[in-house]
């Protein structure tokens, strides 16, 4: 991806919109007792489209913004999200996206990693309360939600960043000529 000032503004707008949507909408709705978390999915998609460096920087920024808006200890979410953004970017640089299922599956897998990462950071900082086994359900459901949200997020972000993406032109399939009388 070629990051021009215009594209930089678009990426910043996507990051801001994602954080606002997460805090004002997704965190406040519950489906099967769990709120979806789109932030890891957005970071993964930006890493997939923009590469490892874009993924890491966007992950760091989104984490910082989310923590800052909720008066949480700064740095925790940034550390986790920059990691998954980087991983998504490395995946894109090493493998081709052959199937439409790759982005949602990657969103699901890396959201799972991110949720484990959030847990690890919290445990590292110290948790002063008992931990419910339901936390496992929360992590699994968040990952499943990420699978279903991953594809629309991927399509939306790809559309916004289309001018910056270096894509190979699609090969048009030609119909085989019909032979009359055959």
């Amino acid at each position, binding site marked *: 991806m070629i990051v021009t000032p215009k594209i930089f503004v678009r990426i910043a707008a996507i990051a801001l919109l994602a954080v606002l949507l997460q805090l004002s909408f997704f965190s406040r709705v519950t489906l099967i007792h769990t709120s979806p978390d789109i932030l890891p999915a957005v970071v993964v998609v930006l890493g997939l489209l923009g590469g490892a460096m874009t993924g890491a920087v966007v992950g760091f920024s989104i984490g*910082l913004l989310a923590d800052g808006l909720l008066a949480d200890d700064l740095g925790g979410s940034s550390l986790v999200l920059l990691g998954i953004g980087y991983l998504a970017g490395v995946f894109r640089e090493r493998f081709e996206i052959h199937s439409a299922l790759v982005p949602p599956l990657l969103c699901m897998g890396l959201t799972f990693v991110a949720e484990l990462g959030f847990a690890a950071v919290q445990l590292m900082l110290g948790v002063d309360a008992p931990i419910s086994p339901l*936390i496992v359900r929360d992590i699994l459901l968040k990952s499943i939600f990420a699978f279903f949200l991953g594809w629309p997020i991927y399509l939306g972000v790809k559309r916004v960043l289309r001018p910056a993406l270096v894509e190979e032109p699609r090969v048009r399939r030609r119909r085989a000529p019909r032979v009359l009388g055959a």
Partner: protein
Amino acid sequence: MYRKQVRRRRAVLTLLIIGSFLLLTATYGQGSGGLQQGISTVFGPLQDGADRALKPARDLVGWFDETFEARGENDRLRSELERERVQAVAGQEALQENEQLRKLVELDRSSAIEFSTFEPVTGRVIARSPTVWHSAVTIDLGSGDGVVVDDPVMGGDGLVGRVAAVQPGSAQVTLITDHTSAVSAKVLPGGAQGVVRADVGDPEDLVLDFIVSARKIGVGQAVVTAGWRASEIASLYPAGLPIGEVTRASIVEQEASQQVHLRPYADLANLDFVQVLTGGARG
């Protein structure tokens, strides 16, 4: 050229990781710093706008979720109603006793909030934390409304948490389901005292810890804030604020204290409006 790119990429990654650790070290347990104040002040109005714009969509998803869960809820409410009926009879007796006692001590105040000097200010929840590890909400009340750090926050039915950080137009509230929260509380009737803490990962469950195992506690008993004062220090919460009701009480014979599980009265998963108790004396 490629090697140079890879080196640059790794350098940026290392810098970001070091930056994250530095931020964690600098802000851990410090509350709201200058950077956080700045972020909240700049993006607060945007959050407020997003909250208003997304309310219809949130309500729609909420309707689907509630319909899905209504059946299970119905069964639970039926059994709860039966229990409440029994308690209502007991409550009538207690009310009569209470009236007599009031006459005796010449007290005529109706609730914990009225009893204290707190002034309730109503606000709207505009954002919520995405992770269960940090249970917090942002509200549209700030220092301009008289809100200060550590003010108690109530929901429609019970205690919600306390103010953790304040900006001019917004404030962050740490919920009682956050792992850093600890509320001194007592069980009614009986008065057994303990500390209410979160059960991380389950927003519908709280743990009342450090209760002497000799005190018998039953399912359905109410838990309220204890409120205490010892010379210079005092509890952040006034006495008598409702927290929740006991759902499970287990006595471990070998231990000197018992753990009691309770369900918060306030619907912490679906908070829309809260009341901040401003001013007033602690404890």
